[in-house]
């Protein structure tokens, strides 16, 4: 299955060139990619009784594999990702007709699709996290697609920070989860449910994992990024913000429900936050008039319902939990189909008329008959009219809440949240097409026309699929059973039918639709009433986000002013003082006065030439410091190097001695060549500064002397690497010069790194000597 995921990324790489060569056909051709992937996955899924699993070692040392597994839940999501993905690619190809950015859009969509497939197919917690973050990154690119507009950039950054922050929490959560369960494999987690429950880590795991789910799925209080993300082009909103990315949180909650569910914290967090989100977002949708924002808030509300339904599907629950598990699947599928269609319809309406405001769009029935078909089917599906899939989704959700507790919080939330959603369905899918008046077209550019083929074929297809599945739900029996089983953690038998008989649920359903219609009719008075509530938004979580962002930036400015003075010497001073403090503290902590004494005692074994060498070295070094002339300083520097190489000669390091002598020669040549263009010495520092620097320098030097004295008395055993190199140089390395064997054989990888550094230095010098700065070039 790695192949399927990688195919998406590879196709993304070819999307831009393809869009340049075949601009018109790029969308439909690339749509074959998700369809092909879907066919391959279907073949795998249908072909085996047990869920197929593949695994490729990725970082074997850490036990991290690229493992993929295709069970019912994964297949359902893959179906949505690839199926809707194909529709979106066709739509985007037509939507960006004549736009140079078409290739970029198609490429990013494909990369996003592949990441999303990775999320739902991954069977290793780390792989899941990696793909999860990839969806955040690709969605950042997609939301900020109009990067020349500040609004888009801000919305993209907000989405990235919120979902990325949640992603970090998720990473911590999955690491703890793997520790508690003793396995990284997601499919093995459910079997460890008891172990996880007994672990003291259970609560932190739940909090962290849900933080990831809730940010991704835009639950209150993290919901604000989703409506803002409507700054994205419509195909992006249709794909990411209805059918796929925002459902990743629902997916993860459903996926981990068998292993983490059963804990009261898990269950009530899901039900509580889901219910709160559903009601809040549904109420907020009443205040919206822009098509996409209406859809955005209704999507947040639906996500809340889904999260709530996962909470109801407790793994050890009774019949009500089974109903809830089935409801998760049906509602998810129905919502993805009608919401993606409605987004696309909204995009087509805006494209055809230039209008975004739902209040201005009327009477487009004749002008846009095909979009009308798609809009009405999807809108009515969202309203919950029987014979459409949306009805089954809504009915099953009500049934699940009803069976749990007829007056419980879930039921209450559904009853409150559903009527505003009915309004959204009517306003976006139905109302723009009805009425006798002709729609006004923005900037008076004549009348509205039907959108090009690429932009209606997809929505119509999705809407018809919703109709077919609504009429013949038994087609879904296998997928729903197996998916619900994965959510519930136990086998589920689904026998779906168009009509489940007349009962309380149907009555409730009718009441909700009537409630929605009533809200629609009395919209002006409701509008007035909700305006007051809107003022509360100033204190909402988005304000918190803004404060946190501004605070971080302000803190950054303050600490930059404090620490980044811009004076190189001050940085160096801090570095030196810090190093002296750390090394000094370590030496004091080691507290070995005896070792220094012993080392000092060896001063009697000194040869005359040693003294000569060291005196030469120190005198030359002081001369470098003291010299008033540049040439004298360079000569003194050469003398230091010569003394160092003589030390190497005396103390058994012929290779080093040779290297040092040659380098010394080259250094002097280098300095002499560079010197001609470098300035003379001038005394720039005050006397006080010089005294201060002298103190630091003597402190540093004294510390290093102590360090050497201590180090000379550390006894290392035979287990150190040197002993191995000394013994194996000839048998394994075929060389008698052990130093050279280490360089080119035992530690050749290090040497490769070092010669790379040399090569970079050479390139850098060339660039500095030959290249011209932007400033000079402009002159």
């Amino acid at each position, binding site marked *: 299955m790695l192949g399927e995921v990688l195919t998406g990324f590879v196709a993304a790489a070819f999307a831009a060139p393809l869009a340049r060569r075949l601009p018109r056909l790029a969308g439909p051709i690339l749509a074959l990619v998700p369809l092909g992937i879907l066919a391959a996955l279907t073949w795998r899924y249908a072909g085996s009784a047990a869920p197929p699993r593949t695994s490729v070692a990725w970082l074997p040392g850490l036990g991290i594999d690229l493992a993929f597994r295709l069970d019912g839940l994964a297949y359902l999501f893959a179906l949505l990702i690839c199926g809707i993905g194909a529709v979106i690619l066709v739509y985007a190809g037509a939507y960006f007709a004549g736009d140079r950015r078409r290739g970029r859009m198609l490429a990013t969509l494909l990369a996003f699709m592949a990441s999303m497939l990775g999320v739902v197919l991954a069977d290793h917690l780390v792989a899941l996290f990696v793909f999860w973050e990839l969806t955040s990154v690709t969605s950042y690119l997609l939301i900020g697609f109009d990067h020349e507009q500040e609004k888009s950039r801000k919305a993209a950054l907000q989405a990235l920070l919120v979902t990325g922050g949640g992603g970090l929490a998720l990473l911590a959560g999955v690491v703890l989860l793997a520790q508690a369960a003793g396995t990284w494999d997601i499919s093995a987690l459910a079997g460890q449910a008891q172990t996880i429950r007994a672990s003291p880590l259970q609560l932190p795991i739940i909090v962290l994992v849900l933080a990831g789910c809730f940010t991704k799925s835009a639950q209150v209080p993290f919901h604000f990024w989703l409506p803002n993300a409507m700054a994205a082009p419509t195909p992006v909103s249709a794909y990411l913000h209805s059918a796929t990315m925002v459902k990743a949180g629902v997916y993860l909650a459903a996926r981990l429900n068998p292993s983490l569910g059963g804990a009261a914290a898990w269950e009530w967090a899901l039900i509580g936050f889901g219910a709160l989100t559903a009601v809040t977002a549904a109420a907020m949708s009443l205040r919206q008039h822009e098509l996409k924002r209406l859809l955005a808030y209704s999507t947040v509300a639906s996500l809340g319902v889904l999260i709530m339904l996962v909470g109801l599907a407790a793994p050890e629950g009774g019949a009500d939990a089974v109903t809830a598990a089935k409801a998760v699947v049906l509602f998810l599928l129905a919502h993805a189909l009608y919401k993606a269609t409605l987004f696309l319809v909204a995009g087509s309406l805006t494209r055809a008329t230039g209008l975004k405001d739902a209040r201005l769009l009327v009477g487009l029935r004749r002008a846009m008959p095909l979009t009308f078909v798609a809009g009405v089917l999807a809108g009515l599906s969202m309203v919950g009219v029987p014979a459409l899939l949306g009805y089954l989704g809504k009915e099953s959700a009500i049934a699940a809440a009803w069976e749990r507790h007829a007056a419980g919080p879930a039921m209450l939330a559904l009853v409150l949240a559903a009527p505003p959603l009915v309004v959204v369905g009517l306003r976006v899918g139905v109302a723009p097409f009805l009425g006798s008046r002709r729609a006004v077209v923005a900037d008076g550019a004549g009348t509205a026309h039907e959108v090009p083929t690429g932009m209606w074929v997809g929505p119509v297809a999705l809407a018809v699929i919703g109709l077919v599945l609504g009429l013949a739900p038994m087609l879904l029996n296998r997928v729903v059973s197996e998916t619900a089983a994965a959510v519930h953690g136990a086998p589920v038998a689904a026998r779906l039918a168009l009509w489940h008989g007349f009962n309380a649920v149907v009555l409730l359903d009718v009441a909700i639709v009537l409630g929605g219609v009533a809200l629609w009719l009395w919209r002006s008075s409701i509008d007035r009433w909700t305006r007051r509530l809107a003022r509360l938004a100033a204190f909402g979580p988005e304000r918190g986000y803004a404060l946190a962002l501004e605070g971080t930036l302000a803190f950054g400015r303050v600490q930059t002013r404090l620490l980044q003075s811009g004076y190189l010497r001050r940085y160096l001073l801090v570095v030196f003082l810090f190093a002296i403090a750390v090394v000094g503290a370590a030496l004091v902590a080691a507290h070995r006065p005896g070792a220094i004494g012993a080392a000092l005692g060896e001063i009697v074994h000194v040869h005359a030439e040693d003294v000569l060498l060291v005196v030469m070295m120190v005198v030359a070094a002081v001369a470098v410091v003291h010299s008033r002339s540049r040439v004298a300083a360079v000569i003194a520097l050469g003398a230091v190097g010569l003394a160092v190489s003589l030390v190497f000669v005396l103390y058994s390091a012929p290779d080093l001695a040779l290297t040092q002598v040659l380098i010394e020669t080259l250094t002097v040549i280098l300095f002499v060549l560079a010197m001609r263009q470098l300035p003379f010495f001038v005394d720039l520092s005050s006397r006080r500064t010089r005294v201060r620097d002298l103190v630091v320098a003597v402190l540093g030097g004294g510390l290093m002397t102590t360090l050497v004295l201590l180090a000379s008395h550390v006894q290392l055993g035979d287990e150190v690497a040197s002993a191995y190199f000394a013994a194996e140089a000839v048998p394994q390395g075929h060389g008698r010069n052990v130093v050279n064997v280490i360089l080119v054989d035992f530690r050749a990888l290090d040497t490769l790194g070092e010669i790379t550094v040399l090569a970079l230095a050479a390139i850098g*010098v060339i660039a500095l000597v030959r290249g011209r700065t932007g400033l000079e070039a402009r002159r």
Partner: protein
Amino acid sequence: MSSIILRTGVRFVTPLMLLLAALLVLRGHNEPGGGFIGGLLAAAGLILQTLASGSGASRRLIRVAPLTLVSGGLLLAAFSGFLAMIGCGAFMTAIWVESLGLGTPLLFDLGVFMVVVGTTLTVIEGMAEGNA
């Protein structure tokens, strides 16, 4: 710096240094020497030539741009490491032909030699060029 004595002297000294450098690289595995030292010595010889009679002279001797030498050396060193992977060994595993006394580490050392010569020449010539 273009005295006749220097130029005449260099005409003999540079080839000698290059010869010595080759020797140091070849025997570096068993005696003091190796790619780093040989490379530095060869570069020093070529730089002597440059100082005596301009950068054209050393270019005539080695016939390639120093940066080409650098990249060629890097590629050679990396290639010597990849050779082992053909036989499914880990990257950088040494392969020896015992009877000839030849092995991939020698190839690697040759790569080091090329990088060192190239870098040193680039740097010094770059500095000299900046003065012109």
